[in-house]
């Protein structure tokens, strides 16, 4: 391609853009929407993302997810006008955020009803059903959340890894049974995680398009990881090293899923839901132990070093602790939705890799009775242990 030819290509590429810009300018200046301007009230959508209750103070974090700037003119708490400060500004631009601090003597255990009165007279309501002081990130809470993460995430995964010697002693057919079983476990977790992501998107400000955020998170992770795996697996080769990479991937996917689990636990504990405690923790332990089994299944016939088990266990389990911290102290619906979407994408990617490994090993005999049974048993185990936390 000569220099003049190259210039022509650039020109042909840019010409439609220039035309589009001209049309946009024309539309904004002479467009037909003027007809509607007077007829419709402005669209104002503020999302209350987080309410922090401190001693005699209510701190409200809001995001403007609507198409236009919103001005919070007054604040009502429990149907009374209340003095307050708003930072950085009363007028919140599109996708802007603000923090409203209200010195309000709320009462523990009673509801708090918040109303934000905008400059156009619109009321944005938000209810705190039961007022409880929000945890401050001090050592005691940090230790509590860490312990929770350990019990719910880390310990069960390591316990599950202890199935390795058992798996080692099985023949190829049984190994495949357990690999299929892992597939079943993962599909269950993936669907579960996806559903949770889709549920949480309701709390995402409208302009951030919760559903699209989930789709981007799931597909982006799935495709991105696939590329990474292509490169790593090619470097690792097809044998034991490749299977070890797969085991690590399973650990990663499960880790991301457990991060979401930690988020939920942290946030729930942070608002005083302690009574759900022991039984739920036990349920999670049982449920998550099977995840350890899934991690070691691909390497059952190999001899990975002990360090690998340590790292894989941490990769799968430790995010629960991180999630509990995040959930307890800095929860945001947007972040949680994204985390869960990434988790779901990672899990589905791992299922895909697992299928490929088994297909390579078994030729095209993937749908054997053993494998189908393994897959169904995997789903069933997850379903049944899930009953303990459902």
């Amino acid at each position, binding site marked *: 391609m000569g220099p003049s030819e190259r210039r022509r290509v650039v020109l042909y590429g840019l010409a439609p853009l220039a035309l589009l810009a001209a049309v946009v300018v024309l539309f904004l200046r002479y467009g037909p929407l003027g007809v509607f301007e007077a007829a419709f009230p402005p669209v104002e959508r503020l999302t209350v993302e987080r*309410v*922090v*209750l*401190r*001693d*005699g103070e209510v701190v409200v974090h809001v995001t403007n997810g609507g198409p236009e700037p919103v*001005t919070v*003119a*007054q*604040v*009502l708490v429990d*149907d009374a*006008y*209340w*003095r*307050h400060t708003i930072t950085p500004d*009363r007028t919140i631009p599109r996708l802007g955020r603000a923090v409203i601090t209200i*010195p309000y003597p*709320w*009462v*523990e*255990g009673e509801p708090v009803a918040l109303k934000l*009165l905008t*400059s*156009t*007279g*619109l*009321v944005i309501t*938000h209810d*705190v*059903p*039961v007022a*409880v*002081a*929000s945890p401050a990130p001090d050592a005691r*809470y940090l230790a*509590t959340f860490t312990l929770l993460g350990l019990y719910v995430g880390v310990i069960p995964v390591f316990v599950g890894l202890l199935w390795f010697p058992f798996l080692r002693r099985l023949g190829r057919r049984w190994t495949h049974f357990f690999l299929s079983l892992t597939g079943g476990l993962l599909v269950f977790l993936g669907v579960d995680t996806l559903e*949770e992501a889709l*549920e949480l998107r*309701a709390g995402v400000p409208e302009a951030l398009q919760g559903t699209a955020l989930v789709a981007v998170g799931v597909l982006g992770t799935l495709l991105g990881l696939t590329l990474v795996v292509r490169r790593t697996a090619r470097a690792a080769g097809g044998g034991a090293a490749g299977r070890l990479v797969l085991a690590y991937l399973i650990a990663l996917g499960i880790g991301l899923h457990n991060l979401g*689990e930690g*988020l*939920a636990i*942290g*946030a*729930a*504990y*942070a*608002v*005083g*839901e*302690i*009574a*759900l*405690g022991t*039984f*739920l923790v036990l*349920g999670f332990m049982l449920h998550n132990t099977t995840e350890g089994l899934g991690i070691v299944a691909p390497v059952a016939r190999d001899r990975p070093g002990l360090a690998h088990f340590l790292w894989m266990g941490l990769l799968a389990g430790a995010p629960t602790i991180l999630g509990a911290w995040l959930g307890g102290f800095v929860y945001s*619906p947007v972040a*949680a939705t994204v985390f869960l979407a990434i988790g779901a994408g990672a899990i589905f990617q791992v299922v895909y890799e697992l299928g490929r490994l088994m297909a390579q090993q078994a030729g095209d005999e993937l749908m054997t009775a053993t494998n189908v049974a393994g897959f169904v048993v995997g789903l069933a185990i997850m379903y049944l242990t899930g009953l303990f936390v459902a």
Partner: protein
Amino acid sequence: MGGRLSRRELFRLAALGATGAAAGGVSGAGLMAGARAARASAGGSGGGMLAAAGSTGLPQAPEAHGAHEGLGTVGEVELRHAGVDPMRYLTAFDWGRVSRLPSGQTLREYQLVATDREIEVAPGVRFAAWTYNAQVPGPTLRAREGDRVRVRFVNAGTHPHNIHFHGFHDAAMDGIEPIARGRTFVYEFDAAPFGLHLYHCHVQPLKRHIHKGLYGVFIVDPPQGRPPARELVMMMNAFDTDFDGENEIYAVNTVPFYYLRHPIRIRQHELVRIYLVNITEFDPINSLHLHANFFHVYPTGTSLTPSEYTDTVMLCQAQRAILEFRYRRPGRFMFHAHQSEFTELGWTGFFEVIPDGAV
């Protein structure tokens, strides 16, 4: 809850948790033991709420500051946007253009123009009002019993409107026929009976035409008049800013908390006469409670003998009462709706009683 919580519920809780909420909170283990209920911090700084009227150098009631610290709107309504100057409205009476009919009867001519106007009903909150003479409430029309009243009504608004006067008049003057936009109509009748009345738009849907601002006070004085007094008009009104059938703002004379920030000055021992009208839409009743005092109540003002000596009066929508009282002691005294909700949504204020001899 005891373990009966599903994982799905846990995630829902997480979303709630983000917002400081718990679904049916049971608190058990030691984790939350440190979470204490917040205590109301009474006292402390006086707050900028009662900035005005400190100039008299009077003994002020500090407890009144502390007790209401925190409560109220932020900022000030700009009076030129408010649709009414609450301080001027208290004492502004339109006696009309006065002349004599051949019969010797006094003729009072008024003009009311309906217009659309955006008003500021709380600091920074705009409200698409419908007004008489660009103000909410409309001007206080005043006549003497037996006077001929002639009201030229011009509808310069975007909807049909009219004026229905409380009192005696012919069927043709009842003010229920809508007057189309751009049209004029003249209401004419003899002012009777004496008392404290009301006028308002009577076009359907009624709720909207009234609560958007088309109402005002119509006072008919008894022929012999009433004893001299400091006369104050108080219209108990409210605004539903998001049109959901519930009021966001309650006030007397439109601006919430106005007389709290700007107390009404009266003199010690002086007779005070309040023309109290309830036009509150969406709530059947409203009330006034006076602190540290009692008042005589003249229901609808149609009798010169008070019916009651009390400190609280309750009025249904469109009900009126004349209240008379004197303060024996100087200082700052509160008055407000005795529905706490209305008080905290703006219907509250102070009298500042200036001692005898003070300028």
